[in-house]
């Protein structure tokens, strides 16, 4: 049953992963960025996680590898979720893209790229999706002030 999948995944990747924990019913795995694509492929092929729910990042300014890139997977066969995390530094925030595995990664990676500045190696189309051309900076980073507006149309007198 579902708990089984979590144990099998934990057993399979427990050694290589930096940290495996259960966060409120979802298995959370922390891996190095280099190993991310490999784990994602194994989750999809071996354990049946065929739905990439979400790609996002968390900004920890005071921590050395500053960003957590967070993926959420769902298995439509066992109704179970897994969270895959990788820590990337701010000077080289590059991660392998999951577009070859999941098409739903296209838009999600574009949003994560423009909001946090995470580079996705292998995703050719990283145009801004929620923001607009010519927007300088990454708004969801903690150091981007909330009220700094970059208007496209000059204001009236």
């Amino acid at each position, binding site marked *: 049953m579902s708990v089984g999948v979590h144990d099998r995944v934990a057993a399979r990747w427990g050694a290589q992963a930096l940290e495996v924990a259960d966060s409120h019913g979802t298995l959370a795995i922390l891996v190095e960025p280099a190993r991310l694509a490999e784990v994602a492929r194994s989750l999809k092929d071996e354990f049946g996680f065929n739905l990439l729910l979400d790609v996002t990042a968390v900004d920890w300014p005071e921590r050395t590898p500053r960003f957590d890139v967070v993926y959420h997977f769902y298995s439509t066969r066992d109704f179970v979720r897994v969270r895959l995390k990788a820590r990337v530094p701010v000077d080289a925030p590059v991660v392998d893209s999951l577009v070859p595995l999941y098409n739903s990664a296209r838009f999600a990676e574009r949003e994560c790229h423009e909001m946090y500045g995470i580079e996705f190696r292998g995703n050719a189309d990283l145009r801004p999706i929620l923001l607009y051309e010519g927007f300088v900076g990454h708004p969801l980073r903690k150091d*981007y002030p909330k*009220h*700094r*507006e*970059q*208007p*496209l149309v000059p*204001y*009236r007198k």
Partner: protein
Amino acid sequence: MSAGPQSSRSPGALEYLTTKKDEFVGWARKFSLFPYPFVTACCAMEFMAVSSSPYDTDRFGAALPRFSPRQSDLLMVVGTVTHKQAPVLRRVYEQMCEPKWVIAFGACATSGGFYQNYAALAGIDKIIPVDLYIPGCPPRPEMVIDGIMKLQDRIARDRHPILTENF
């Protein structure tokens, strides 16, 4: 919007004629508003409610939406206008034919509502002149109808130079 400066004219017959003409044209325009629904966000739900049967704006002649700025004279900006949407709104406003009126429908169009951050435009009057503000997030349909009636009163009292600059 089209209230030009009061030029000094000899009172008497001409004055009477122009006021009667303004009243007549104002009455005609008041009941034939063709709105361009510039609909973006949650106020769309109330715009649907206000243009459907229970709260019908058709009773005021203001319900037939024209989705081209060339055929409409009332720009109803319904919902939040973000900075990415601002050039679109500005272009639609400029492509509308005279005389034109603008209604800011809801708190977001009026002042950006409670989205005071990098993404939302803090009120559409920063980029286009607005004739009427309807508060509420979203406003109840009765408030929208009250707003339209206020705009109609204003159109009725307005000056309507149709032939030359000041006649």
